[in-house]
């Protein structure tokens, strides 16, 4: 697996694309799902909002999502900066 350094803006773009695709594909029942993340209880739309503003939680979401994207595409993304 090769490694690639990217900045936060690029990481956010990759993850937002993936999350948006997921949310748009959700049937109504799955839009009601909640994601318990630390002390937060998030809806899919909440996740997109945090990633968009890239607050502390948004950065954690980006890191976890990027990990999965890395495995899917065979590139180890390393966020620099």
């Amino acid at each position, binding site marked *: 697996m090769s490694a690639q350094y990217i900045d936060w803006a690029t990481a956010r773009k990759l993850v937002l694309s993936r999350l948006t695709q*997921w949310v748009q594909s959700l049937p109504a029942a799955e839009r009601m799902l909640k*994601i*318990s993340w630390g002390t937060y209880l998030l809806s899919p739309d909440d996740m997109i909002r945090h990633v968009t503003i890239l607050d502390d939680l948004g950065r954690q979401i980006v890191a976890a999502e990027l990990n999965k994207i890395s495995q899917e595409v065979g590139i*180890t993304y390393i966020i620099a900066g």
Partner: protein
Amino acid sequence: MACFVRPDYEVLTHWVSSYLKLAVESAQSLGLQVFDLYGSQATAESFFNVLSQFNPYIVCSSTHGLENVVYGQDGTPLLTGCVNDQALSGKVYFALACRTASALGPSSISKGGLIYWGWLEDFIVIMDESYPPLQDPYAYSFLHPILDGLDVLFRSILAGVDVQTLARNVYEAVVKSFNDEIAYWRTAPTATASQMLTYLIHDRDTFVPITAAGIYTPPAMVTAQFPLQAFLAVGAATLPLALKGLMK
């Protein structure tokens, strides 16, 4: 003898305490004496009363956590590194909580704790509140591996295995169970399957057992890919530093 601490005061603690109740019943059915501190009883006062009077060998909790704190009912601190974690001396502790393996875990081991199983980062769960907790097909995948690990914990202790074997047995049972769930969601025909995989992999790869020998590292990482190796490598490298810092 085992002590369970199960706060129940909001959605996540309601979900995880429901699952840990199954572990309470499992321990009882295996013949272990059990203290089940649930809801309003899941406080530091009740917990330390049980520890001082009965000295249980096994402690399990399902609750919120931060790096150095495990919380009890209504978010009140239950255990804090370098404040009262010496209470875990001579015990094995399974902490279903976010992040505590990064600081509280090493701190308690430096004070004589035998094994600390916990998570280096946030423990993430997808939940569907339209189901009762135990029938939620999403949450089940995240919480069933914990029940599998606890079952192995109880049975291994009753079989008299040594500490290192116990740490490894429970770790491997949890990881295997996560891998089974990951295999299921790889083929599940639902839009959320991909997100389930993301967080199941995250929860699996941030779970660690800590003993006085350090963080257990499996001899061959055949099931996990690079993230687990990276986490364990970083954890193993930083544990001595963390312990050194905590002892200052």
